[in-house]
């Protein structure tokens, strides 16, 4: 899943601001700027179920990461001190803005029906299966939860990385412990660690504070997630051709708009506000 949406929406002084507090690792800063790692705060995270299709669908992460690095370096050079628009970010008063701007991600796109469906499936399965104790039911609930995260990440343009897959496989393996063992303390530790690993998979942190808070960071996404879901459900899912609030303004789009059977010409205005 490429970083293009998130890179494009970031203000130009952001890479410059990120550079100063972390001098020892400039390439890591550029990469971390676009480090999508999925966090999975849900009841379980078995992203491998969704991870394998993503793996085969994205064959060349290396080339894309090189392109990303070049873009980030170009953005950094653009933000060198001395250039006119760098002054605002370099001023001490702007430090706090820089901090929260560094932390806050770009807002997610409108929720897709696949995501809503997986979320609903997770809720149903957890109501049905989780009420009597722990066992295989955690793994059963993990599947739609990870599918929901996978579809959402795909819609936002994020890509599966080796570390993401590692965290996801680890989380899945840890959920096997309550299915195998009856003892209380190891089971509790394993479930908590599975949550932490899923959270790390979704956030993709690399530094000490990143890893520590990234393991807990799902609690930060609960309220925004609920708001996002309610808003998406009220608007109607963003599927082209469906009536409802138009998710995009009429513009030059290729030929998959439903009202036309031939490739649409750029000058042609659509009759219905669907695309």
């Amino acid at each position, binding site marked *: 899943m490429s970083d293009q949406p998130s890179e494009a929406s970031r203000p130009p002084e952001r890479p410059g601001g990120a550079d100063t507090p972390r001098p020892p690792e400039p390439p890591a800063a550029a990469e971390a700027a676009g480090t999508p790692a999925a966090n999975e705060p849900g009841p379980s995270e078995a992203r491998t179920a969704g991870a394998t299709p993503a793996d085969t669908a994205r064959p060349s992460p290396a080339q894309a990461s090189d392109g990303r690095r070049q873009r980030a370096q170009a953005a950094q050079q653009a933000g060198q001190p001395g250039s006119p628009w760098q002054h605002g970010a370099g001023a001490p008063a702007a430090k706090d803005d820089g901090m929260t701007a560094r932390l806050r991600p770009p807002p997610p796109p409108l929720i897709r029906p696949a*995501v809503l469906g997986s*979320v609903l499936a997770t809720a*149903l399965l*957890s109501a049905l299966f989780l009420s009597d104790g722990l066992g295989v039911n955690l793994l059963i609930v993990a599947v739609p939860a990870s599918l929901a*995260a996978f579809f959402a990440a795909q819609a936002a343009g994020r890509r599966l990385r080796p570390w993401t897959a590692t965290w996801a496989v680890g989380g899945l393996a840890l959920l096997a412990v309550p299915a195998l063992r009856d003892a209380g303390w*190891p089971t509790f530790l394993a479930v908590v660690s599975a949550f932490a690993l899923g959270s790390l998979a979704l956030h993709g942190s690399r530094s000490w504070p990143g890893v520590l808070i990234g393991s807990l960071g*799902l609690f930060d996404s609960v309220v925004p997630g609920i708001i996002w*879901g309610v808003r998406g459900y009220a608007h109607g899912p963003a599927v082209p051709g469906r009536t409802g609030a138009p998710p995009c303004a009429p513009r030059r789009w290729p030929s998959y708009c439903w009202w036309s059977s031939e490739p649409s010409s750029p000058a042609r205005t659509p009759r219905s506000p669907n695309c």
Partner: protein
Amino acid sequence: MVFGTLFASADAAFAELLSSLMPEASVGAGPWRTLLFALGLAGALAAAHAAAAPVRWDGLTVRPGKPRGRAEWALPLIVLNLLFAAFITLQLVVLFGGYDKVRDVTGLSHAEYARQGFWQLLWATLLTLLVIALALRWAPRGGTGDRTLVRSVLGPLCVLTLVVVASALRRMDLYVDEYGLTRLRISVAAMELWLGVVLILILAAGVFGARFLPRAVAVSAAAGVLAFGLISPDGLIAEQNVQRFEDGRSTSIDIDYVKDLSADAVPALDRLPEPERSCALRFIQNDVLHDDTPWYATSWGEARAKEILEKRPVKGDGSDCYRVGREGTGDGYEPDDDGYDPY
């Protein structure tokens, strides 16, 4: 759904299978299930939102510590290194036969001397890790000379701490051999082992660069938890205690402790001879055979225990269990001790 009901009505055995697979939907559990539904919804939405737009926690930076001067930084650490070296040298001297002197001085028997001290060494390991973290934070950062100084002081410290970890684990091993394995002992031994792994990771970070260190430590913690769960600690505890009993190393097994283990311990406890076996398995049998948890909420350990206990149930009513296993060396308490048991 349609086909399921058609098949279910056509064949009674299939209907039976379906009803045993599906969770029962009783109205009485309504509020609980609604709560679970809401939790599942919120959790999945949070996961999806974090997947689509994760907060970049990496942006949180800790202000780097003020680097100290070389002598100011290195001197306390060198003293610490010498202290560790002296401790370990003493251990080696005793190990290779200086034991009689130790007995003259401290009055402890060989076995007692070899066993004690695990907790103190555990604390020493933890404090050393803290010292290493602080030392790295305040390390002089001038250039290559400074980097070499840091490595040459902290490297030996890590290695010496690893030797201390090994010594602590050996002491716990001897203690457990004598007094039996318990949940506390296996947990702290696992903790000490993990601290040793963290020290090795720090050493590797000193050689290869610290970029992967946070994630490597997280991976090691997760792997540790996974291994701890998979080795079935309750099963190991029961196994070790039963083995000590069978080998005659202890006069009797501590039934009071062992009967409180979980269902993972049943295969090992099954091997006990009769009065001990029934006394040990009594409570576990009540839990396993009479709780009617559905298939999706039962772990494999529980299922295996149920199978064993259905084939060979507990005999008797447990009224004479008070006499069995009473003289065991429970948690390391021996009546002729001065009562000092650190565990």
